[in-house]
């Protein structure tokens, strides 16, 4: 809301530098976001929070300034107290107004003013209107806008001669139409509040007037409306029609009912002064007034909320200046809230009022007693941290991708969308669903980088995947891994590409760090988006803990990726219970090792893990390590076979092994291998 320095000074003697005033207001909660200086004046742009509709008025801001400066607030007399109607006999007889829905319109006032001369406003009025960022129209409209800005009470002036018969404030019927003053034809929704004459709506209550009864240069008789409309109803209507106005903005935030007749008086007086005319009596329907709340105020309570030691006199003075009525009865102070401060409901609110004017900067800094949590981090936090630090050590870079994705991206990734969580109100197709898999996000990141000439990509993300089954929503923590392109780009290493065994090795290394050495089994699997023959499931104690594989070429091409991509998903919850991050020292043998190579020619279908488990089983106690050092497929062996060279480390914990002992075990291993797997040796 834009308000000029000089306008504020109409209500308070603010004889201080405008920038100083700006800073005082900002630091007490009436935030000035920017200002401009024009022709010796300053125009402040205020950001008024939703709880303070009273500051959507120049007088409201002036009241704040007055409290801050310790100066009186000067309010025009029509606004101070409502003048009693002079005589009951003087009733408006020429016009019938009825309110059909008192819930949506608890108070409605109107007044006929005859013989007005519509024309341009005087300079002072035009300047005020322009300073607030509005456009001057004519003296009548400008006065209603002026009073709206001054008091926060929206007013509307109709050209009464263009209204057809009796007026009713009622709910619109389905399909009723009105052309509003912005020249847009609008169709009303059933139930929205309108002001109507005998034939059609002439205004959308509290939101915008209609073109039909708009005041123009020919207007001679006006009907001045000042009312209180239900905030929720106005909010719904404005949202439905996608229009907002100075009026609807204030009605939504709840205006002060007590201001309804006063603002009418103020505007009437200005109209008579500026455009002439004869004021008729005030029609006032539904005489509700603003609820006043009485709160017992204790300065000790306020100080205990704030951590301050403000004295009672000071606190009372502040609250008085802000418009609260105070009644001091031997120690206990009864505070009555004014109609324009319905946001104040209890002692915490009063403490805030005192603190704002006292100054937040004057509140001391203190440190509370700690609560004494016995556990600062849950295991999952520590576990996820460990995963992240391990993977960065293993040369993977962390990415963060959106948890909202498009439906098409999961189709491209070949992922089933039966149980996905669908967003009702996405802003774009990129926000249609909660991701059921981390794969599309990973592929998008890889694609983005390849398009920008990256050569080597190694990524991971720790996040959640989401699902819905029978109305139950699930959020499961998952780690995704992605490797694509060359392993290293430097001169020292040849440009070898990532392979399945890189993603497998990364996973093995990670699981090792998490305390799962050696007991994970890998078997072929089938996972959405991954190629049929390069797809493995990792299991621990029969539970699936990860899936890895090469991304199906059709899928990666769907994301504009030409290169091979290796992907993995690790199911964090399945790992959690079995993970062992604590380390225990295991004494190692002080005796030397003996290395023996074993070169096996086996069917292509013979699994490496079966060979290794036989070696370990037969050589139990002595075989410490079995390393695959070479893989050969080629001319020197039959086509359906492959040669595997394992290096076995023999070591005893008790003594130096003799050659003969090693030889004995080694040949036992060999015969077990031939017996069980029908392999030969080279």
């Amino acid at each position, binding site marked *: 809301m834009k308000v000029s320095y000089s306008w504020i000074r109409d209500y308070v003697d603010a004889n201080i530098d405008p920038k100083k005033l700006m800073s005082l207001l900002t630091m007490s909660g009436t935030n000035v976001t920017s200002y401009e200086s024009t022709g010796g004046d300053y125009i402040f742009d205020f950001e008024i929070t939703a*709880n303070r509709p009273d500051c959507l008025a120049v007088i409201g801001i002036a009241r704040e300034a007055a409290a801050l400066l310790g100066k009186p607030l000067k309010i025009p007399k029509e606004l101070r107290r409502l003048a009693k109607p002079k005589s009951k006999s003087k009733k408006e007889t020429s016009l019938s107004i009825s309110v059909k829905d008192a819930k949506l319109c608890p108070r409605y006032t109107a007044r006929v003013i005859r013989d007005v001369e519509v024309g341009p406003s005087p300079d002072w009025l035009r300047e005020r209107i322009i300073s607030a960022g509005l456009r001057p129209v004519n003296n009548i409209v400008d006065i209603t806008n002026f009073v709206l800005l001054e008091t926060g009470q929206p007013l509307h002036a109709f050209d009464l001669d263009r209204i057809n018969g009796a007026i009713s404030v009622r709910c619109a019927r389905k399909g009723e139409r009105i052309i509003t003053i912005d020249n847009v034809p609008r169709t009303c929704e059933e139930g929205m509040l309108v002001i109507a004459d005998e034939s059609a709506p002439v205004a959308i209550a509290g939101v915008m007037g209609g073109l039909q009864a708009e005041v123009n240069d020919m207007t001679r008789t006006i009907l001045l409306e000042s009312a209180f409309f239900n905030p929720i109803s106005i909010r719904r209507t404005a949202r439905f029609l996608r229009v907002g106005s100075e009026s609807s903005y204030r009605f939504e935030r709840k205006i002060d009912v007590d201001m309804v007749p006063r603002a009418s008086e103020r505007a009437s007086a200005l109209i008579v002064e500026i455009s002439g005319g004869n004021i008729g009596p005030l029609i006032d329907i539904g005489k509700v007034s603003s609820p006043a709340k009485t709160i017992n105020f204790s300065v000790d309570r306020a100080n205990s909320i704030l951590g301050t030691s403000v004295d009672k006199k000071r606190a009372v003075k502040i609250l008085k200046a802000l418009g609260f009525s105070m009644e001091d009865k031997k120690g206990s102070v009864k505070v009555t809230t004014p109609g324009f401060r319905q946001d104040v409901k209890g002692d915490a609110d009063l403490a805030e009022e005192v603190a704002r004017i006292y100054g937040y900067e004057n509140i001391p800094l203190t440190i509370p007693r700690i609560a004494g*949590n016995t556990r600062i981090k849950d295991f999952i936090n520590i576990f996820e941290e460990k995963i992240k630090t391990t993977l960065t050590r293993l040369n993977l870079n*962390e990415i963060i991708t959106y948890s909202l994705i498009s439906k098409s991206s999961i189709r491209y990734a070949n992922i089933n969308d039966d149980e996905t969580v669908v967003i009702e109100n996405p802003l774009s197709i990129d926000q249609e669903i909660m991701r059921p898999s981390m794969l599309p996000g990973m592929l998008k990141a890889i694609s983005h980088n390849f398009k920008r000439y990256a050569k080597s990509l190694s990524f991971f993300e720790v996040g959640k995947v989401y699902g819905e089954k029978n109305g139950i929503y699930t959020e499961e923590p998952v780690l995704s891994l992605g490797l694509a392109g060359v392993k290293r780009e430097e001169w020292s290493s040849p440009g070898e590409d990532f392979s399945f065994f890189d993603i497998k090795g990364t996973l093995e290394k990670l699981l090792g760090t998490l305390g799962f050495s050696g007991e994970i089994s890998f078997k072929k699997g089938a996972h959405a988006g991954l190629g049929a023959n390069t797809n493995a499931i990792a299991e621990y104690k029969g539970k699936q803990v990860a899936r890895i594989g090469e991304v199906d070429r059709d899928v990666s091409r769907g994301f504009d990726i030409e290169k091979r991509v290796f992907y993995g998903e690790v199911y964090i919850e399945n790992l959690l219970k079995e993970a062992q991050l604590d380390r225990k020292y295991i004494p190692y043998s002080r005796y030397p090792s003996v290395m023996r190579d074993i070169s096996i020619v086996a069917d292509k279908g013979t699994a490496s893990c079966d060979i290794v488990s036989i070696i370990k089983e037969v050589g139990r106690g002595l075989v410490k390590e079995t390393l695959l050092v070479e893989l050969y497929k080629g001319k020197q062996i039959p086509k359906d076979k492959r040669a595997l060279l394992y290096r076995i480390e023999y070591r005893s914990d008790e003594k130096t092994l003799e050659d003969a002992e090693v030889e004995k075990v080694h040949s036992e291993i060999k015969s077990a291998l031939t017996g069980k797997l029908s392999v030969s040796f080279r």
Partner: protein
Amino acid sequence: MLEKINEIAQLFTNDIGNARGMQTLEEIRVKYLGRKGLVAELMSKLPSLEKEKKPAAGRELNTLKARIQKELEARQRTLLSGASLTREEIDVTMPGIKPPEGRLHPITQTLNEINGIFVSLGFKIAEGPEIEKEFYNFEALNIPLEHPSRDAFDTFYIKKDTLLRSHTSTVQVRIMEKTKPPIQAIMPGRVYRPDAVDATHSFMFHQVEGLMVDRDIKFSDLKGILNIFTKQMFGEKTEARFRPSFFPFTEPSAEVDISCIMCRGKGCRVCSHTGWLEILGAGTVNPRVFEAVGYSPRKYKGLAFGMGVERIAMLKYGIDDIRLFFENDIRFLKQF
């Protein structure tokens, strides 16, 4: 005696075979040829031998001694000539071979830093669901239905009463529902708002919220705690100021600004020439929130604060576009 000599000869063959450097070579020399070495020990036993055995034993012992000397020298020569291989010519200006390493996302690094500060002050890390019941996101936090205060919290809906949380304050309510005070926790996590995406707005971002509830928590405690946080996070010279503001779930509420870390408060483009940067919202817990979770507002008081992690990371690293965080360009990720 001759057996003993053979044994030592065998032992020496073994040892010299394993000698890989000058240090072991010297150890071997001392072991065999030293004043108290194995050879000297046998020498000292010669006089006590039978007369006829003396000459042969003496001969053998001298041969062994000569052999040991010779082989030690030969071994020494090979080791030294091996060392001369390092005289190979290299181009020292060629790039070093850098061990590869990965990086944590700047959001994770910022989150770790924020969490770390609060953890050191005794806050526990707590988490909660992202798909939430409307109640936890709004009503329990004193944000009534169809009230303009909801405008600041536009929300993605999944169905009528289920939504994507638009702030992690939801976790505050969940903690208070199932725990009795005292409470001291921070709640990091992803949040969602249907904002049109531009350089400063994203429909998904991260927040950290904090909550303390006890019998005598005061607004001044909030100032004390956040003063430590801002100074630790942004530097000792950074000033923090508390400005009255409005949040439905705190009363009194404050917006916390820090002196602009770019211009040190002089005024620049980043701080819109105000010298101040808005970084977090805070306040003492509104008694109505306590009522919603079944705490007695007379008995307990609390403080709460919340901040956007992306905003803090942008300020800290000088990043001018929030979209960079989710694009995952390797040239971006490698910088942090």
